[in-house]
């Protein structure tokens, strides 16, 4: 491997900063780092199990009992009614698919662009993708009137030769989400293999040893294995990016293809993709904060610089979102179609107008007012609060598009206000299930891609050229 040193940045003399504040310039011996990750993974305390128990109880109640009620008594237990045929369940679907976008974006795009500060948190983001998609899929099932017949939407050969209708945007949606779930799970698994092998070698026995041994696929770390793994990861990193863009575009087509005022908008595709990134990035910031403050040793891995990266991304995406929202707003307003105008008037002046104003404040004003400052960007708790607020705002945005927007249709006689009923506990249930899955996964698989961090630390070094100390990165390929 030829190593070519190239200067990355030339620090000015007056702001000479300690390079060891950066993870890449603060290396630890491999064995010690592995031990730290293993310890963080396998050490539990009563608080952890207490929270897990509470979450499991919520999941059992909301997704077990309440869902049973919903299935046995019908959608009448939910709040949906004539003009608002679609309610909070589909808001949840769009929201969770949005959350799942950041995982791929951070992991694949930052990997392809070789952004070095991605290294310690790619896996935390990828896990969000997989677990978020699980919630999205469950929310679709909750929405169906006869969920026990859901297999009729799958192209299964049958003796009656009835095939699903591929004209329907819902079928595109089903295909896209299934593809994305499969791709993202594989993409989560590939970089996990070396870490699973590491965990296998450091586990004494028992079922965990079998678990790691099975999943590590006999990885030993030979040159050939690394070569194959890197090639596979490279292919997946490039291939999953168009899949990611297509998924949320197709989700937006569920609305954009319908001939409803407020929905049939040509800008919905990119607008939804950016919206997904907006909520996803913010969710990654929240998760990073939670991991850093709850997991042992993670203060070493997740540092101010990573919150700085996330903060910058959040600010950029917030600006892009504002741009697309302005587009989506201005064109119908200028067009002056009477129905579009009524929808806009209802969202701005109707009884739920406060949702619209809250959305604008937390999605645009809050990130713009806070994230421009590097010091604030590097404050984990501040970033977590901003991230939570952005997620509230993005949830409201979907709520405004679906149940608030469809209240206004071309038949004024049917206009009625929707109010969620059984959707409330079931929405809480999906959030609890997401957290529960994440907490359980944090005890089973290393949430830090240790080998990636080590690879990065080997590639970085400080060189003295003349009097200047320069951070250099050797090209590993």
């Amino acid at each position, binding site marked *: 491997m030829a190593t070519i040193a190239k200067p990355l940045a030339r620090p000015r003399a007056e702001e000479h900063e300690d390079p060891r504040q950066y993870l890449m310039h603060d290396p630890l011996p491999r064995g010690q780092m592995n031990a730290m990750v293993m310890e963080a993974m396998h050490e539990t305390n009563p608080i952890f199990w207490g929270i897990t128990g509470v979450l499991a109880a919520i999941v059992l109640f909301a997704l077990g009992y309440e869902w049973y009620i919903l299935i046995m*008594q*019908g*959608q*009448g*237990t939910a709040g*949906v*009614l*004539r*003009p608002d*045929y*679609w309610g909070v369940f589909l808001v949840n679907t769009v929201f969770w698919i949005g959350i799942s976008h950041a995982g791929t974006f951070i992991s694949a795009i930052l990997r392809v662009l070789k952004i070095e500060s991605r290294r310690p948190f790619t896996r935390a983001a990828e896990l969000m993708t997989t677990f978020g998609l699980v919630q999205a899929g469950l929310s679709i099932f909750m*929405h*169906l*009137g*006869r*969920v026990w*017949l*859901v297999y*009729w*939407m799958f192209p299964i050969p049958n003796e009656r030769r*009835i*095939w*699903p*209708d591929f*004209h*329907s*945007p*819902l*079928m595109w949606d*089903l295909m896209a989400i299934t593809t994305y779930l499969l791709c993202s799970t594989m993409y989560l698994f590939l970089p996990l293999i070396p870490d699973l092998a590491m965990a296998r070698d450091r586990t004494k026995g028992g079922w965990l040893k079998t678990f790691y041994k099975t999943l590590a696929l006999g990885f030993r770390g030979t040159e050939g294995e690394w070569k194959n793994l890197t090639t596979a990861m490279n292919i997946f990193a490039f291939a999953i990016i168009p899949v990611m863009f297509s998924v949320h575009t197709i989700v937006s087509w*569920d609305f954009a*293809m*319908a*001939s*409803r005022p407020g929905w049939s908008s040509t800008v919905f595709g990119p607008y939804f993709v950016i919206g997904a990134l907006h909520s996803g990035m913010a969710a990654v910031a929240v998760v990073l904060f939670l991991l850093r403050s709850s997991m042992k040793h993670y203060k070493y891995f997740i540092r101010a610089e990573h919150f700085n990266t996330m903060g910058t991304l959040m600010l950029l995406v917030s600006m892009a979102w504002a741009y697309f929202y302005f587009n989506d707003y201005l064109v119908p307003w200028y067009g002056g179609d009477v129905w579009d105008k009524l929808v806009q008037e209802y969202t701005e002046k109707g009884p739920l107008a406060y949702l619209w104003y809250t959305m604008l404040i937390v999605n645009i004003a809050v990130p713009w007012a806070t994230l421009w400052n590097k010091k604030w960007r590097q404050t984990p708790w501040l970033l977590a609060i901003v991230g939570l607020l952005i997620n509230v705002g993005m949830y409201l945005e979907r709520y405004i598009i679906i149940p608030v927007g*469809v209240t206004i*249709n*071309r*038949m*004024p*006689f*049917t206009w*009625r206000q929707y109010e969620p009923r059984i959707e409330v506990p079931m929405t809480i249930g999906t959030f609890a299930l997401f957290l529960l899955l994440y907490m359980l996964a944090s005890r089973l698989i290393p949430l830090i891609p240790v080998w990636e961090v080590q690879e990065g630390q080997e590639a970085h070094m400080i060189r003295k050229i003349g009097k200047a100390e320069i951070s250099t990165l050797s090209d590993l390929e």
Partner: protein
Amino acid sequence: MATELGMPGVPNQLEEESVGRWGMVIDQDLCTGCQACVAACSMENNVPIVGEEDAGYGRYMHWIRIERLWDSKDYPEVKMTPFQPMLCQQCHNAPCEPVCPVYASVHSMSEDLNLQVYNRCVGTRYCGNNCPYQVRSFNWRDYNDERIHPELVTLHNQMNPDVTVRRRGVMEKCTFCIQRIHKAEDKAKSEGRDVQDGEFTTACAQACPTNAIRFGRLDDPESQINQIAATNPSRAYHALEEVRTLPRITYLKGGV
């Protein structure tokens, strides 16, 4: 006048030129808003009675409703729009059809009607969302289950045996009383002739005391509905014509 497109798989007729088979003319000047059509339709088609609470929330399931709106905002100048019975327009170019993922909402080529296949429906409710007329009704609960409405069990005796009773989670809508259409067609076929205009009518048209709703053949230029529409060209219009759904119901404007 059919346009020859000469392309395989494309019918030799522009969609606008297809006349359809069954249609209605609804005269808003004659409608008194008495709701007899609503009651007749519910009895003919086993439309569930949803109960006070759900109806108050807005979940009434009538396949036909009488719409009337305020025309002016200021109090003393209150003006009401004429009554407008709203039911499935049996669009030729129906927005509800392509969005169904399981072919539960399909078009009948022989009758030119929108059909809803109840036992195929999985309840995505996309069709209801995409219907510009908002005339599809969803079975929010098992309204015919005696555990939900024990007081209505006796009403089960008046159900029409020719029509299915739908269960929860299924979309339904006006069928132009397809059971009557089929009965008339079977009778005509056994006698070796075509169905005559006026031989039968739908429940709503039958119940209408002022004959505001009239049902008949669209493809017969001599039929009553075609004659009425032709003699009132200034009053005839289609609901939400701009959406280009090519509806099969012609309204005659009221209060002109």
